């Protein structure tokens, strides 16, 4: 079980690292577009993806530091627990900041009996239900804006963006449910990765077709 959880965490780190790289790519193209057009909202979009990338990489770094490097087993010391809470809060704060920037730029767009499970949930993240609910509400606005944009422009690129943000939303919904199920946590990470892949496909196709 312990090994199984360690594998899940490594997969989690891989998914988030890939997501972070794609977020940086979107930020790069949004900055390029801003430099070319001077459209301020593109700058906000770029900042949003940069902040999202920062959140993902800080999460990867924090998870690696606490659970992979130290291989924490059993009870956590109060100091370490406090540090994890701070890192987790920063992660949530950055994500919420990123989603608020998406809203602005696209506007118009514990309970477990198993200690291993406790470790998994306490570690990569300490899911904060209240912050997750806030995140979901903000993401709902982003998805709604993306949907309205797609309804108007009807381009496949807008559909990729709608898919990407919808996957992020599903990811956060599953993250809340993950308090009950470890497998759901990984599913949440998979949805997040799918969202980033939708953005990657959009970037690729926009330059090819």
């Amino acid at each position, binding site marked *: 079980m312990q090994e199984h959880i360690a594998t899940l965490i490594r997969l989690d780190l891989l998914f988030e690292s890939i997501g972070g790289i794609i977020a940086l790519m979107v930020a790069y*193209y*949004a900055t*390029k*577009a801003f430099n*070319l*057009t*001077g*459209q301020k*909202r*593109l700058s906000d*979009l770029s900042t949003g993806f940069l902040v999202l990338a920062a959140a993902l990489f800080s999460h990867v770094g924090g998870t690696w530091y606490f659970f992979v490097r130290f291989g924490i087993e059993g009870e956590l010391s109060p100091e370490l627990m406090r540090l994890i809470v701070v890192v987790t809060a920063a992660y949530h704060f950055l994500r919420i900041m990123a989603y608020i920037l998406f809203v602005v*730029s*696209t*506007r*118009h*767009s514990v309970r477990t009996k198993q200690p291993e499970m406790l470790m998994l949930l306490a570690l990569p993240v300490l899911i904060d239900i209240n912050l997750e609910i806030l995140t979901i509400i903000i993401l709902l606005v982003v998805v709604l*804006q*993306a949907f*309205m*944009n797609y309804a*108007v*422009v009807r*381009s496949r*690129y*807008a559909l*990729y*963006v709608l898919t990407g943000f919808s996957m992020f939303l599903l990811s956060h919904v599953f993250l809340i449910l993950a308090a009950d199920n470890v497998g759901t946590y990984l599913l949440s990470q998979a949805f997040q990765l799918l969202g980033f892949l939708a953005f990657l496909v*959009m*970037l690729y196709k*926009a*330059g090819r077709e």
Partner: protein
Amino acid sequence: MKGKRTYRSKMRILADMMRAIQGEGENGAGPTKILYSANLSHDRLTQYLDELVKKELIILTDSESNSRVYGLTEKGRSFLKEFVRVERISEAFGIEV
């Protein structure tokens, strides 16, 4: 959204002019064709054509005859390609450029 557009950024106007030229293929396009395709006033057309020539994005291919003809340069072609990409990405996020 396209129907509601009331403001075009300067960069979009320049891109529309270049698209009009590109649309005419190897023969290039005359000022009248560019004027109508890019929906511009005569004064603005002259001003922006000069700017595009200065930036080496377009070239006056037939200056001898009375009718001037403009063609895209290689730099202009790659600029337009980049702009189209930027335009698609921006549009995908609901951002007008």
